[in-house]
């Protein structure tokens, strides 16, 4: 689960990691006020206006603006709140922006002739060593993946003890390597320590500050200040049960509505771009079903000499081990809500899941499904492969309900099912 930048700032603030003053607004009428608050005490007189969406590419899309006047602030906020943001990371139709962050633009100390004191700091879990690791670099403010690729030496990695977390000596060593001096060292150590504490306490999968910056010296801070400008967090969904305050930050506007609907029924659903809907039990088998659809689809197209078409899965859908008939019915309705779906493959290997429950769910779904023209029942080809627990009962239920399932084809095994469904869709 991801959160917005303004929420990330609040989270950092609650762990005493300094962030520039700022405020989130949801209506343009608050823009002038928010600008006045942010600009007060600013060394540069500059304020940054940022659209609050999870997708990246905001800057290039014009949804991050640096302004110096109240008028410009209002104009920028109004633009963001009334236009959809389009970037390579958003859907083609763009995203509606409902929240805008208005914050003081921090002044960043110079590094050398033309550089700035910008750093990268993150904590994530390294699966291989089964440890949380702190990742830091002197080259902040840019894509860290690029830095890691071009100059792996510029990346510092420190494993955290599974029970003790980040130790003071480790944080100091990182601070020295990043080039901090004097009073900056303790400030940087405090930020790292707080971030690692936050990471574990809130069950994060990623806690990233990019950039972490050093401000120029002032009378109050002769060595400058170490502050966080932007932050990204993602959280372990399995840990949310113990953090209701984090769970409440989820923004449903940022998620696919069909995926949210699926969650309510305990279904794991991911929308994809193809034309064959899949309903499977088990995540591994669901992925494998997607794979075999694409594989058999390609084989068929090759055999027919068709080059300008692809046959691909329309979704990932794992009904889980304990789905009810209602959940199966809901799964069909979610799959068929996508107009691109031209065929459905059901692939069930019953372990905990009983084949007769699935069969009854299919029958109920078909009988209750309303088409746009007012008729009921499935119009798209439906290929069903059942195996495992209560398979005979399941097959009999489907056979007996043949009248309600005119497009049903029973498959004998996985490969038979995939071949039948791609053939039906290819026409």
């Amino acid at each position, binding site marked *: 689960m991801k959160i917005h930048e303004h929420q990330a700032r609040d989270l950092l603030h609650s762990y005493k990691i300094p962030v520039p003053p700022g405020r989130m607004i949801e209506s343009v009428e608050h823009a002038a006020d928010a600008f006045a608050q942010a600009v007060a005490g600013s060394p540069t007189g500059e304020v940054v206006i940022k659209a609050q969406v999870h997708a990246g590419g905001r800057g290039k899309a014009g949804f991050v603006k640096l302004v110096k006047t109240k008028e410009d602030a209002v104009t920028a906020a109004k633009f963001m709140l009334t236009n959809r943001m389009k970037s390579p990371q958003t859907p083609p139709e763009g995203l509606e922006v409902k929240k805008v962050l208005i914050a003081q633009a921090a002044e960043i100390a110079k590094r050398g002739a033309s550089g700035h004191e910008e750093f990268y700091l993150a904590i994530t*879990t390294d*699966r*291989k060593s*089964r*440890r*949380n690791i702190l990742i830091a670099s002197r080259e902040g403010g840019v894509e860290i993946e690029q830095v890691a690729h071009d100059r792996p030496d510029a990346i510092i990695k420190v494993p955290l003890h*599974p*029970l003790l977390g980040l130790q003071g000596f480790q944080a100091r060593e990182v601070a020295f390597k990043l080039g901090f001096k004097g009073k900056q060292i303790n400030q940087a150590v405090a930020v790292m320590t707080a971030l690692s504490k936050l990471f*574990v306490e809130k*069950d994060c*999968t990623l806690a990233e500050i990019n950039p972490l910056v050093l401000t120029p010296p002032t009378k109050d801070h002769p060595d400058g200040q170490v502050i966080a400008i932007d932050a990204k967090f993602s959280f*372990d*969904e*399995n*840990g949310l*049960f*113990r953090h209701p305050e984090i769970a409440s930050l989820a923004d449903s506007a940022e998620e696919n509505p069909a995926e949210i609907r699926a969650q309510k029924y305990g279904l*794991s659903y*991911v929308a*994809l771009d193809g034309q064959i809907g899949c309903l*499977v*039990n*088990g*995540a*591994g*088998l*669901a*992925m*494998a*079903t*997607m*794979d*075999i*659809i*694409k*594989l*058999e689809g390609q084989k068929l197209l090759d055999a027919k000499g068709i080059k300008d078409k692809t046959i*691909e*899965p329309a979704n*990932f859908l*794992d009904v889980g*081990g*304990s789905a009810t008939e209602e959940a199966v019915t809901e799964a069909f309705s979610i799959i068929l809500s996508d107009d691109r779906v031209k065929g459905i493959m059901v692939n069930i*290997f*019953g*372990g*905990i899941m009983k084949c007769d429950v699935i069969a009854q769910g299919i029958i109920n779904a078909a009988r209750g499904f309303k088409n746009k023209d007012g008729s009921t029942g499935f119009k798209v080809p439906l290929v069903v492969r059942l*195996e*495992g*627990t209560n398979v005979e009962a399941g097959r009999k239920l489907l056979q007996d309900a043949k009248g309600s399932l005119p497009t049903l084809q029973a498959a004998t*095994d*996985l*490969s038979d099912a*995939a071949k039948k469904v791609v053939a039906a869709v290819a026409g």
Partner: protein
Amino acid sequence: MAILIDANTKVLCQGITGSFGAVHTKGCFLYGTKMAGGVTPGKGGTKDANGLPIFDTVAQAVRETGASATMIFVPPAFTADAILEAADAGIRVICAITEGVPVQDMIRVRSVLDELNGGAETSASKRKFVLVGPNCPGVITPGPRTNMNSTTGEPGAPFTNAGCKIGIMPGYINTHVSQSKRGKAIGIVSRSGTLTYEAVWQTSNLGFGQSTCVGIGGDPVRGLNHIDCLELFADDPETHGILMIGEIGGSDEIDAAKWIEANRKSGRLKKPVAGFIAGRTAPPGRRMGHAGAIIGGADDTADAKIAALKAAGVSVAMSPADMGSAMLSAMGGS
């Protein structure tokens, strides 16, 4: 004796009075597993529907039954505690079936178990405690079918008296080597539950038996991984071929490929290995059901894993329908 568990393994269920725990205790009991009882704090002294004794603590259950394996069905919030309680009571094979355990819990639990085992590098066969899962279907060492109904051909209860099933796998699709057409047993290791069943089904249909099937689970931080199981199967005289089923995310399968290459050279691994990797069509950055199945970098894609396994001489099925036939061709059969 296959690997990890055999017909004599006495098994507990932690969370035996929960709905899942109760259903699967019965399933294992009917399969013929030597279920020794279960644990639900506060219900000690009572019996479950199968007449199995229920204890308040794992330590008490071990003292009174001599159990050496456990399957954990408690809710995710209590799973870490249940694993550590089992280890503290001296149980060696700990299968955590529960789905949805927080990653940070597993980091702490693994670190404690690694410490007890003498370090993270201790090989699976030498570990004092072997954790399987969480978020896994369990482990099964099939036994020959007994008590078959002579008219329907369906097994009665107990299904077998020489096998052991721990967890939620359907038992009846497995074949004991003594009843297999080819007289060869396959060891199966997989990150996915239902894909394991598919593999068992295909190998059984092609005339193989299974020595042991281990569902290692789909979580990013877990107990046994592919390498551990490859090692156990490589050294097990009752396993004749190995089928490993992986998926996108993490580097487990790449590590396995390196292990296979190195141990072929050293002569420790003499058995044919076949494999399948799920998720070639999965888009990067999206979680495909399993918490561990997210493509992050270049090395954890299905294609990178397939290439590494092929380079290590593994017979890789490109379609999930061909897992059994990939194993067959690796075994030199047709």
